[in-house]
């Protein structure tokens, strides 16, 4: 059996190189891997491409990484009015941004997860989102071609993991986490609780262990920001 359980946040992110492409789960304050993000802040990796719905809330979530100028490019749907460090870097042209409609962000990650090479959608037709994209008519509708979003890592947050990496999520903290877990080459999950193999009912596993490569318990490290 492969060892997936790590005992420290710093150890679990130790191999993340400068320039890595990383997906970060979370939405609306729920389901963010805040302890993993803080470990990346401590490690000081640079030139990260971040794929995330938004760009932090002041110091919270991805905020500190923008404050420290660790992120050079963002693929996001809604950077957010409270992402002040991102907005400063963006205004100063220290970070570039690709804005993607939220559902299309999900689908492009899922396409990477599912081994699909692209898909057509009506979403964004006639808008700035369509700029530079192939357009054609399919099923009688104007569509644009959207390409998969791949990543080296997914940093996600779950409620429980068993020692194999099967995950469950709590309430609406699920959000982007299962999709990112499937889409990245290496998925690292910060969880509230690690339980023995067999503790999660097979029918109630939300992310099967095949998608999860490392897990670490956020021992009372609950993020306050």
């Amino acid at each position, binding site marked *: 059996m492969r060892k997936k359980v790590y005992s420290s946040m710093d150890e679990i992110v130790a191999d993340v190189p400068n320039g890595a492409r990383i997906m970060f789960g979370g939405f609306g304050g729920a389901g963010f891997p805040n302890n993993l993000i803080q470990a990346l802040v401590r490690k000081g990796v640079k030139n990260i491409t971040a794929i995330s719905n938004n760009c932090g809330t002041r110091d919270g979530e991805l905020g500190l990484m923008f404050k420290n100028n660790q992120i050079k490019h963002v693929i996001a749907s809604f950077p957010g009015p409270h992402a002040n460090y991102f907005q400063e870097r963006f205004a100063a042209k220290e970070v570039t941004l690709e804005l993607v409609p*939220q559902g299309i962000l999900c689908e492009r*990650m899922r396409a990477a997860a599912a081994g699909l090479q692209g898909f057509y959608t009506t979403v964004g037709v006639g808008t700035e989102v369509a700029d530079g994209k192939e357009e054609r008519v399919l099923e009688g509708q104007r569509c644009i071609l959207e390409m998969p979003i791949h990543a080296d890592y997914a940093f996600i947050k779950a409620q429980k993991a068993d020692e194999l990496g099967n995950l469950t999520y709590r309430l609406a903290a699920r959000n982007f986490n299962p999709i990112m877990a499937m889409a990245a080459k290496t998925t690292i999950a910060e969880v509230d609780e690690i339980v023995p193999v067999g503790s999660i009912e097979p029918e109630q596993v939300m992310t099967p262990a095949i998608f999860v490569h490392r897990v670490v318990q956020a021992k009372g490290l609950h993020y306050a920001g």
Partner: protein
Amino acid sequence: MRGSGIQEKTAPNKPRLTREQIAQRAALELPDGAYVNLGWGIPNLIADYLPKGITVYFHSENGILGMGRRAKSGEEDYDLVDAMKVPVTLIPGASFFHQADAHLMTRGGHLDVAVLGGFQVSEKGDLANWKIPGAKGSGGIGGAMDIAAGAKKLIVCMEHTTKDGAPKIVKQCTYPLTGLACVDTIVTDLAVIDVRPEGLVLREVAPRWTPEEVQKLTGAPLIAKGRVPEIRFD
């Protein structure tokens, strides 16, 4: 952005609907048992004005179906928030799912009604609601484009004119677009308007307003079929 100025000068000095009244009128458009997504701004007020006896299943793009009222003080669970980060509650029969399935619902035509805010709506039903030209910062799209593309019925709630008096219902949008030919109904502080193949059909006007007065504040022709009734809230 400033309108022609003409409208501003000729705008009658009569009361318009409040934001709450726009929401209250829009709530009447939701059929019993409908699956509904409410966007930021005025639409988010609609949940408070559902008629008695109507059950609506509110969808949130972060993966909730069956959202209830906002959480009271002391009841908040920050793993149970709506798309505006506000702690909410659930009604019986609610469910959770991931964000890709949440948007499979928006894009795939599964929502009966979606209600979005708007900066501009064109006479063809094009919607601009995510970016003000020249505004500072990155802007953000969120779920609006997926929702606009896929809802069975899309209602836009907004003020009829900008603060400067310029019409927000126009022949052609000048703001960055959210979607083409996606709006079905517009509920403003002056009117209820349906976007139809033949054009913009004026269904109702605000109390004490006439169709002619509303037309003057509208940047595209309105079609009145017979007498246009005043907006009621029940």
